[in-house]
C-alpha cells in the first residue's frame, strides 16, 4: 500500500494536525460550495464521534471562509483542516470533491473514494471502524441517495493548477528563479538583463513555462543539446523558457527542439555560424503535416512578417543561442553587418504548389514525416523574372542571380537556397523541368572562363592563381569554365510564396563543406 504524503495543517481551533497521526485516519476533502460535500459532512461528523480516540476523522477544506461556514452550519466537532493554500489537495492528487481517503496507523493508503456512492461509503466506514476496533456510527443510510456526483477540486481551476505545479517540489521546473521587484516594469527588466534580441519578450513566468512544456512529451530536464559557444546544456525547460519569450505557442515547441538539435551538430557548426564576421544565421525550413497543424504560412509573404509560427519558431532558436549558448552580438556573435534574418528566419515549404518532391523527401524522409532542415544563410534576396516562359530561360535567371552570392568571382562556392515562387514553379512544371535539370542549367549559366574569375589588380577577390602551381594556369587552362558551385547538390531548392508574382528568392550561404556549415535535417518528435 502506498505511503500517503505527510503534512501539517491547522484545524478550526488553530491547533496543528500532523499526518500521519500515529493512528488509523479518514481524510475527506470538501468545499462549502459543493452540494455533495454538504451532504456528507454530517456522515463524517457521525463517524468522528463513533471512532474518536481510536482513529482520526479529519475534514480537509479547500477554502478558508467556506470551511468556517461548514463548521457553523453542521456544528462540527470533527477537525476541519484549512487547506486553502491547496498544497495538500495537490500532493494528494485530488481532482473531485469529496475525495475520501482511508489510512492505516502507519499512514498507508487503504482505500480512496471519489464523489459519493452509498455502498462504497458504507464499506469504507465499516473498514475504518474495523481498523479502529470500534463499532461504526449508527447512520440511517436509507435517508441518503445511492449516488451523487462530486464537484471539481479547486486545484484544477484555471491559473491555480499551474501555480501549484510551479510551487511543487516534484514539479518539472528546476531552473533558477529570478524575482522581478514590484516596482520594476517586467518588460524593461528583461531588456536590462540582456535577455532580448532588441524586441520585447514575453516574461517566462513559471506558469507560462509549464504551459509551454505541455507541447512536448519529453522530460523537462532532458538535455536537448549542448549549445556553443558556452557549451551549455539546454534542457527542455530552458528551451521552453526561451520559446515563451519568443512568443511561441506550446504546439510549436517540438519544432524549436528539433531545430536546436539540428544546429548543435558538428555538420551544422553553429559555433562558426554565430562567430563569423560574415552575416549568416540559421534558417529553418519546415516540411510535412505539422506545417498545417501549426498554421504556418508557406504562401503570401512566407519569408516575411505576419505569421506567428513562422516568426516565433525562428526567434526562439535565436534566443536560445543567445541566452543558453551565450552568443551575443559584440561578444562571440561578431557579424560585420548581419541582416534582419538574425532576428528570425523560419518558413514552411509550399509543398502543394511544388512540381517536385518536397525538401524533406528529397533528403530521405517520408512524406508523412514532419521535418526541420536548417541552413546557415544570409537574408533572402529577390530574383525578378516576369518575362521567361520556358524552363531554359527561367533557370538561366536563377543562375545569373546566384552567381553573385558571396562574390561573383569566388568559386567553387558551397550551399545556397533557391526559393521558387509558385508562378515560376508552374512554368517549370509545364515545361517538365526537374530540379536536377534546373541545377544543371544554373551551373552552366553561372560558369565562367578561368581568366574572368582569377584574382587580379582589377578586382582582388577571385580564384587564386596559385592553385595551378607556382607558374599559375597556362593559356589553355585560362579558357576552361569554372562552375560557381562545388557541386549541383549545393543548390537547394524549395517552393514558397504567394500565388501571384513572378518573384523568386535566393539565400546566400557561408563557408560550405566539413570546415564550415552543412545543412542538417531532423524529424520533429511530436
Amino acid at each position, binding site marked *: 500500500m502506498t505511503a500517503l504524503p505527510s503534512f501539517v495543517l491547522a484545524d478550526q481551533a488553530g491547533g496543528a494536525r500532523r499526518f500521519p497521526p500515529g493512528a488509523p485516519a479518514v481524510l475527506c476533502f470538501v468545499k462549502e460550495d459543493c452540494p455533495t460535500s454538504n451532504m456528507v459532512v454530517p456522515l463524517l461528523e457521525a463517524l468522528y464521534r463513533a471512532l474518536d480516540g481510536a482513529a482520526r476523522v479529519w475534514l480537509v477544506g479547500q477554502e478558508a471562509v467556506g470551511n468556517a461556514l461548514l463548521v457553523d452550519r453542521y456544528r462540527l466537532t470533527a477537525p476541519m483542516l484549512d487547506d486553502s493554500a491547496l498544497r495538500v489537495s495537490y500532493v494528494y492528487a485530488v481532482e473531485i470533491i469529496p475525495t475520501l481517503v482511508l489510512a492505516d496507523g502507519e499512514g498507508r493508503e487503504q482505500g480512496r473514494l471519489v464523489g459519493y456512492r452509498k455502498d462504497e461509503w458504507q464499506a469504507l466506514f465499516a473498514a475504518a471502524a474495523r481498523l479502529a476496533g470500534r463499532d461504526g456510527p449508527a447512520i440511517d443510510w436509507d435517508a441518503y441517495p445511492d449516488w451523487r456526483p462530486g464537484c471539481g477540486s479547486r486545484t484544477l481551476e484555471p491559473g491555480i493548477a499551474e501555480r501549484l505545479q510551479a510551487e511543487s517540489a516534484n514539479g518539472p521546473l528546476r531552473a*533558477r*528563479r*529570478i524575482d522581478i521587484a514590484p516596482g520594476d516594469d*517586467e518588460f524593461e527588466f528583461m531588456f536590462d538583463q540582456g535577455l532580448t534580441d532588441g524586441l520585447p519578450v514575453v516574461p517566462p*513566468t513559471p506558469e507560462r513555462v509549464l504551459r509551454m512544456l505541455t507541447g512536448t512529451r519529453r522530460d523537462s530536464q532532458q538535455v536537448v543539446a549542448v549549445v556553443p559557444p558556452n557549451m*551549455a546544456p539546454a534542457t527542455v525547460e530552458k528551451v521552453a523558457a526561451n520559446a515563451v519569450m519568443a512568443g511561441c505557442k506550446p504546439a510549436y515547441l517540438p519544432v524549436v527542439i528539433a531545430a536546436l538539435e539540428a544546429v548543435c551538430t558538428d555538420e551544422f557548426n553553429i559555433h562558426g555560424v554565430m562567430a563569423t564576421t560574415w552575416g549568416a544565421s540559421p534558417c529553418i525550413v519546415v516540411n510535412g503535416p505539422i506545417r498545417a497543424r501549426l498554421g504556418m504560412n508557406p504562401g503570401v509573404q512566407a519569408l516575411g512578417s505576419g505569421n506567428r509560427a513562422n516568426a516565433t519558431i525562428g526567434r526562439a532558436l535565436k534566443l536560445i543561442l543567445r*541566452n543558453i*549558448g551565450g552568443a551575443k552580438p559584440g561578444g562571440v556573435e561578431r557579424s560585420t553587418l548581419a541582416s534582419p534574418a538574425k532576428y528570425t528566419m523560419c518558413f514552411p515549404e509550399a509543398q502543394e504548389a511544388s512540381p517536385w518532391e518536397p525538401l524533406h523527401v528529397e533528403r530521405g524522409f517520408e512524406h508523412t514525416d514532419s521535418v526541420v532542415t536548417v541552413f546557415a544563410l544570409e537574408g533572402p534576396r529577390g530574383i525578378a523574372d516576369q518575362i521567361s516562359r520556358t524552363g531554359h530561360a527561367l533557370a538561366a535567371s536563377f543562375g545569373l542571380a546566384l552567381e553573385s552570392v558571396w562574390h561573383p568571382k569566388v568559386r567553387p562556392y558551397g550551399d545556397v537556397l533557391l526559393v521558387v515562387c509558385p508562378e515560376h514553379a508552374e512554368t517549370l512544371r509545364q515545361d517538365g523541368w526537374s530540379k536536377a535539370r534546373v541545377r544543371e542549367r544554373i551551373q552552366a549559366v553561372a560558369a565562367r572562363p578561368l581568366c574572368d574569375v582569377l584574382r587580379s589588380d582589377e578586382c582582388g577577390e577571385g580564384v587564386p592563381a596559385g592553385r595551378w602551381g607556382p607558374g599559375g594556369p597556362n593559356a589553355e587552362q585560362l579558357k576552361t569554365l569554372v562552375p560557381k558551385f562545388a557541386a549541383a547538390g549545393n543548390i537547394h531548392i524549395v517552393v514558397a510564396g504567394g500565388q501571384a508574382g513572378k518573384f523568386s528568392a535566393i539565400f546566400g550561404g557561408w563557408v560550405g563543406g566539413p*570546415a*564550415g556549415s552543412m545543412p542538417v535535417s531532423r524529424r520533429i518528435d511530436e
Partner: protein
Amino acid sequence: MTQIIDPTDERAPIRRALAPRPAALAGTLALLDISKPRGDVFLARLSERLRERLPGVAIKSYRKPTYTKPAPDALRQQIAAEAGFVIEALAD
C-alpha cells in the same frame, strides 16, 4: 511580484584574473596561424622581427586546420606543453 524562470545557462558571473605579466620574455614563444588568408604572411614577418630583437627566445609556429572552428584539443595541449607565450593572428 513577478517571478521568471532564468532562461540562461546560469553561469555565475566569473571574473577571471589575468595571469601575472612575466618580467621578461624567455623560453619558447608560439605563433598560431588560424588559417585566415595572409595570416601566415603576417606571422612570418613578425617572427623575423622577434628573432632580431629576442635572439634568446625560441619561436615555434602552429596552425589551426580551419579558422571556422575552435582549435582541436590536441593542438591546444601541444601549444600549452611546448610554449610559455602565444601570439595568435586573429583576422585577415
